[in-house]
């Protein structure tokens, strides 16, 4: 199986032999320390913006939307870069995303049925 086929199938089939082992190793490419530091800086800046927005006195709905977007950005950056889901096998992403979607469903259903609110 070629590397392209392996990737298309989400890496579900075990790579066998030295050549395929090298391919799998090549497929998993993580960023270096400099890129991690840059991402850390961006995350720190976003946190600063979140706190600044909190004190800006925006309308509540606008505040909630802005904070949710910023929080989702931070969440995604940590998961994609620091936890390497951007670079690792798709099966890992599937495991996590299924749990996350299930959690989001529970969250939404609970708030919708019992009457909790964000805004």
């Amino acid at each position: 199986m070629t590397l392209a086929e392996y990737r298309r199938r989400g890496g579900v089939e075990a790579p066998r032999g030295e050549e395929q082992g090298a391919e799998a190793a090549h497929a998993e490419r993580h960023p270096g320390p400099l890129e991690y530091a840059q991402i850390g800086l961006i995350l720190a800046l976003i946190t600063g913006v979140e706190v600044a927005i909190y004190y800006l006195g925006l309308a509540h709905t606008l505040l909630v939307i802005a904070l949710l977007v910023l929080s989702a950005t931070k969440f995604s950056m940590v998961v994609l870069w620091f936890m390497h889901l951007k670079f690792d096998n798709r099966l890992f992403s599937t495991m996590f995303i299924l749990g996350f979607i299930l959690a989001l469903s529970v969250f939404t259903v609970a708030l919708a049925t019992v009457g909790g609110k964000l805004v």
Partner: protein
Amino acid sequence: MAQAVGTAHLETSTGLDNRKLLMWLFLGSECLFFGSLIAAYLLYRDRSVAGPYPSDLFDIPFTSVSAFVLLMSSVSMVLALAAIQRGNVRGMQIWLFTTATLGLLFLSGQAFEFTEFNHEGLSLSTNLFGTTFFVLTGFHGAHVTIGVLILLSLFTVSLQGRIQQKDSLNVELAGLYWHFVDIVWIVIFTLVYLIQP
């Protein structure tokens, strides 16, 4: 700068390391656990019949510093992993110790916050806000505590020379857990502290 990470061809049905697969499965289930606690908090936080209420207690500047500390611990954790993947054991030890220290700093902040809230009259049984708040943040704190213990164990083992480049998966698994604890706090910081009723 990208870095190739060596993973030997694994003779498993998925071709992936089962420990890493299990860790991701565990983290997926943890999403549901914390999702339920956060939903419960949002449902009950403004249904207390007696105070104190969130707006009476929350100290946003203090919590922002705590959130920043935990976020930076994620950076040091990923730098520890990058170091060991390059065979830099000393670098990994420094970054692991930094991460554990930042984790302890976060926990100290949480202990201080809980004590302050308690002095203000909020306990686990005061009202619905107190119950859901302490259960949610308490469970998160327990996760951070476990993470710190894992990091300190890894640090101790590495001082004995038992973690080399080939063992980088051990650091990666600890890192996955630690980053998860961080992303949970990202959500809690926004939904619990910044977005108030």
